C-alpha cells in the first residue's frame, strides 16, 4: 500500500512538471509577437534516485529541472557590432540624403547663379557703358552672392538640424541606461535563487540592443551576471548597477556645434567623448564629415572666386572714372561663403562696375574682359562640380555602407530569430505534448486510485 501511495505522490509531482511545461509553452505563445523575447523551454527529467526493490530499480516519476532560454551565443556575440554599425551607417546616410542644397538642378542654386553672372558680364561686353546692362550685371552678382550665402546657410542649417536630432535622442539613451543598470541589479538579485530570470534577461537584452543602436556601446558580460556597456570613445555608459549619462555642450572649436559628453554616475564633471557609434555616431559623422567638408569647400570656392573677381575688378575703372574697389566682400576663407556679398557701394551704383581700363573712355570694356576671363581662370564651375561630386561620393559611400550593414544585420537578426524566436506550430505541439503527458499522469492517478480501492475492498 505504501508503494501505491508513493505512486500517487510521484504523480502529483509529475503533474506539476507537465503543468510547468504547458505553462512555458503557453508563455511562449503569448509572447510570440514580443520583440526581443527568447523562447523558453521547460526541461523535464526523471526523478532520481529510483527505489531499489531487490529485483530492480523503480523510477519515481518526472520533475521540472529548469526553464532555459534559447540564445545562440555565437550569433549574440556578433550582433552588437552589427547593430551599432547599421544604425551608424543608416543615420549618416539619411542625414546626408536629406541635404538638397547642393543638388545641381536646384532652382536658384549656385551652379545656375554662376552661369547667369558670367552671362550678364558677357552681355555687358557688347556695350560696357549701357546702364541697363550694368544694372543687370550687378544684380546678377548680387543673386550669385545670395546663392553662395544660401548654400552655406543650407549646409550650416543641416549641421544644426543634426544637433537638434542629437539632443532629442539623448533622453532616450539616458533613460535606457538607467533602466539597464536597474535591470543588472534585479537580475543579480533574481539569479541568487539559482535559476536564470529569463524574462528579466530578455528585457535587459532589448535595452542593450536599443543602447547599442543609439550609441554603439559594446556589452561586456561578467561572471556575476552583470553586463557593462562601454562607449566607443572610452568610458562606461553602464557599469554594473551604475549608469552614467550623456550630455551635450557647445564646442567652440567646432563652430559652437554640440559635443557629446559623458556625465559620471551620480553627477560630476562631464568629460568629452573621443567618438561615438550607433545612430548618434552616424549623425556626428555626417555633421563633422561630409557636411563639414562641403562647407569648407564652399568657403574655399567663395574665397577663390571672390579673390579672382576682386583682383580683376581692382585693375579697372568704372564709368565714373573711379578705380575699381572690391567687387565682393567675404573676409577670410573660413565662413567666406556665408559672408559673401556684393560691395554695397557697387550695389548702390552700377557705374562703379570697373569695366574699363584706366584712362580709357567709359565705353571701354578691356577690364570687363578680365572679369569674364575669370570664368576660365578661376573655374568656379569646375570647383563647384568637384564639391558636388565629393559630397555625392560621401553620400553614396554612406548609403552603400548602410546597405551592407543592413544586409549583415538582417542576416544576423534572422539567425537570432531562428534560434530564439517563437514558432507557433512548435509551441502548439509542445502544448499538446504537455497536455497528453498531463492526461497520462492523470490516468496513472486514476489507476492507482482504483488499485488502492481494490486493496481497501479486500478487508
Amino acid at each position, binding site marked *: 500500500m505504501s508503494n501505491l501511495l508513493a505512486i500517487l505522490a510521484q504523480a502529483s509531482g509529475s503533474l506539476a512538471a507537465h503543468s510547468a511545461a504547458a505553462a512555458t509553452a503557453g508563455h511562449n505563445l503569448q509572447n510570440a509577437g514580443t520583440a526581443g523575447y527568447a523562447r523558453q523551454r521547460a526541461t523535464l527529467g526523471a526523478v532520481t534516485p529510483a527505489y531499489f526493490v531487490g529485483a530492480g530499480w523503480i523510477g519515481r516519476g518526472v520533475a521540472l529541472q529548469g526553464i532555459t532560454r534559447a540564445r545562440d551565443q555565437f550569433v549574440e556575440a556578433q550582433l552588437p557590432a552589427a547593430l551599432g554599425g547599421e544604425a551608424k551607417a543608416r543615420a549618416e546616410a539619411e542625414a546626408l540624403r536629406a541635404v538638397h542644397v547642393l543638388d545641381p538642378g536646384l532652382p536658384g542654386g549656385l551652379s545656375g547663379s554662376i552661369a547667369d553672372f558670367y552671362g550678364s558680364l558677357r552681355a555687358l561686353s557688347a556695350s560696357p557703358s549701357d546702364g541697363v546692362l550694368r544694372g543687370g550685371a550687378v544684380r546678377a552678382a548680387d543673386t550669385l552672392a545670395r546663392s553662395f550665402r544660401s548654400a552655406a546657410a543650407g549646409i550650416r542649417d543641416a549641421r544644426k538640424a543634426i544637433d537638434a536630432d542629437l539632443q532629442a535622442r539623448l533622453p532616450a539613451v539616458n533613460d535606457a541606461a538607467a533602466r539597464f543598470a536597474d535591470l543588472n541589479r534585479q537580475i543579480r538579485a533574481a539569479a541568487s535563487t539559482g535559476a536564470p530570470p529569463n524574462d528579466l534577461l530578455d528585457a535587459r537584452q532589448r535595452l542593450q540592443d536599443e543602447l547599442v543602436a543609439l550609441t554603439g556601446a559594446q556589452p561586456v558580460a561578467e561572471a556575476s551576471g552583470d553586463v557593462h556597456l562601454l562607449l566607443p570613445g572610452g568610458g562606461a555608459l553602464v557599469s554594473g548597477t551604475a549608469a552614467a549619462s550623456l550630455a551635450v555642450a557647445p564646442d567652440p572649436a567646432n563652430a559652437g556645434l554640440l559635443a557629446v559628453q559623458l556625465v559620471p554616475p551620480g553627477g560630476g564633471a562631464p568629460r568629452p567623448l573621443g567618438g561615438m557609434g550607433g545612430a548618434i555616431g552616424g549623425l556626428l559623422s555626417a555633421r563633422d564629415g561630409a557636411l563639414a567638408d562641403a562647407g569648407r569647400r564652399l568657403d574655399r570656392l567663395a574665397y577663390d572666386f571672390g579673390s579672382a573677381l576682386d583682383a580683376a575688378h581692382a585693375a579697372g575703372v568704372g564709368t565714373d572714372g573711379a578705380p575699381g574697389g572690391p567687387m565682393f566682400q567675404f573676409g577670410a576663407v573660413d565662413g567666406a561663403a556665408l559672408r559673401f556679398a556684393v560691395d554695397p557701394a557697387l550695389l548702390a551704383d552700377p557705374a562703379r562696375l570697373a569695366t574699363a581700363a584706366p584712362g580709357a573712355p567709359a565705353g571701354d570694356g578691356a577690364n570687363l574682359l578680365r572679369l569674364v576671363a575669370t570664368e576660365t581662370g578661376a573655374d568656379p564651375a569646375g570647383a563647384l562640380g568637384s564639391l558636388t561630386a565629393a559630397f555625392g561620393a560621401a553620400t*553614396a559611400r554612406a548609403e552603400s555602407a548602410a546597405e551592407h550593414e543592413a544586409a549583415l544585420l538582417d542576416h544576423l537578426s534572422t539567425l537570432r530569430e531562428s534560434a530564439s524566436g517563437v514558432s507557433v506550430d512548435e509551441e502548439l505541439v509542445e502544448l499538446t505534448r504537455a497536455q497528453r503527458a498531463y492526461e497520462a499522469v492523470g490516468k496513472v492517478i486514476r489507476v492507482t486510485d482504483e488499485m488502492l480501492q481494490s486493496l481497501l475492498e479486500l478487508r
Partner: protein
Amino acid sequence: MRVTDRMIFDGALRSTLQARVRADRAALVAGTGVRVAHPGDDPAAMGGVVAGRSAEARFESIRKVADGARDELVQADAALGSVSTMVRRAEQLAIQLANGSYDADARAAGAHEVEALIAGVTAALDGKYGDRYLFGGNTPDVPPFAADGTFQGGAGARSVEIAPGVFEDVAPDAGRAIAGAGGGTDVLAAMRALAAALAANDGDAVQGQIAGLGAGLKQIAAERARIGGSVAVLESASAAALEARDGAKAQVAGLTEADVVAAASELALSQRALEAALAAASESFRLSLLDKF
C-alpha cells in the same frame, strides 16, 4: 534552420517594403524621366552635370552675344555701304564737274548735291544699334561725328568673347574708315572741300578732291572687308557655340535623364515584383497549425 512566425511576418514585410520602394522609385523615374537628382544618386555624373550645365549656359551666352555683335556689324556694314554709295556719287560729281565745260550754275547745283550727300553720310554714320551709336567705338553714348564733322567716337575697340577665353573686336572703326585716323583721308572733310570748291566754281580745286575721295572709298571698302571678316568669325563662333551648347546639353541629358524604354521596363518589372511579394506574403500568413487546431 528553424522558421518562426516572426521570421515569416518580418520576411513578408521586408520583401513587400523593398518591392514597394523599388516600384515607387521606378514610377518616379518613369514619370519624371530624371534618373538622378541628389548628388548621392551618381556622384561622378553629378560633377559632370554641374560642369555640363555651366558649359551649356556659357556657350548659350557666348552664342547670344556673338549673334548680337554680328547683327550690329551687319547693320554697320549696311550703313558703310550707304556711305560708300554717297561718297562714290560725290566722286562722280567731282570727276564730272571738274570738267571745264561746266559753268558756275552747274557746279553750284553740284555743290548742293554734295552738301546733301554729306548730310546723308553724317546721318548714316550717326545710326544706332539699340541705344548705342554704331560708329562710336568705345564711346558709344555720344554721336560719333560732331556737327562740324569731327570724329569724336572712341578709338578703342569693343570686344566680346567668342569662345572660352577668345575675344574678337566688334566695334567698327569709323575713325580709320571715315576720319582717316592713322594717316588716311578724312572722307567728310574731302566731301566738304569738294562742296566748297564746287560752290566757288573752282575746277582745279574740284579736280584736287577726286584723289582724296577715291582714297576714302578704299578706306571704307577696307573697313567693310574687315567687318565682313568679323561677321564671318562671329557667325562661325555662334555656330560653334550652338554646337557646343547642344553638346553640353546632350551630355547633361545623358547623365541625368532616364532611358525611356529601360524606365518603362523597370516600372513593369517592379510592379510585377510587388504583386508577387504581396501574394507570397498573404499565402505565407495563411499557413499555420493554429488554423488546424
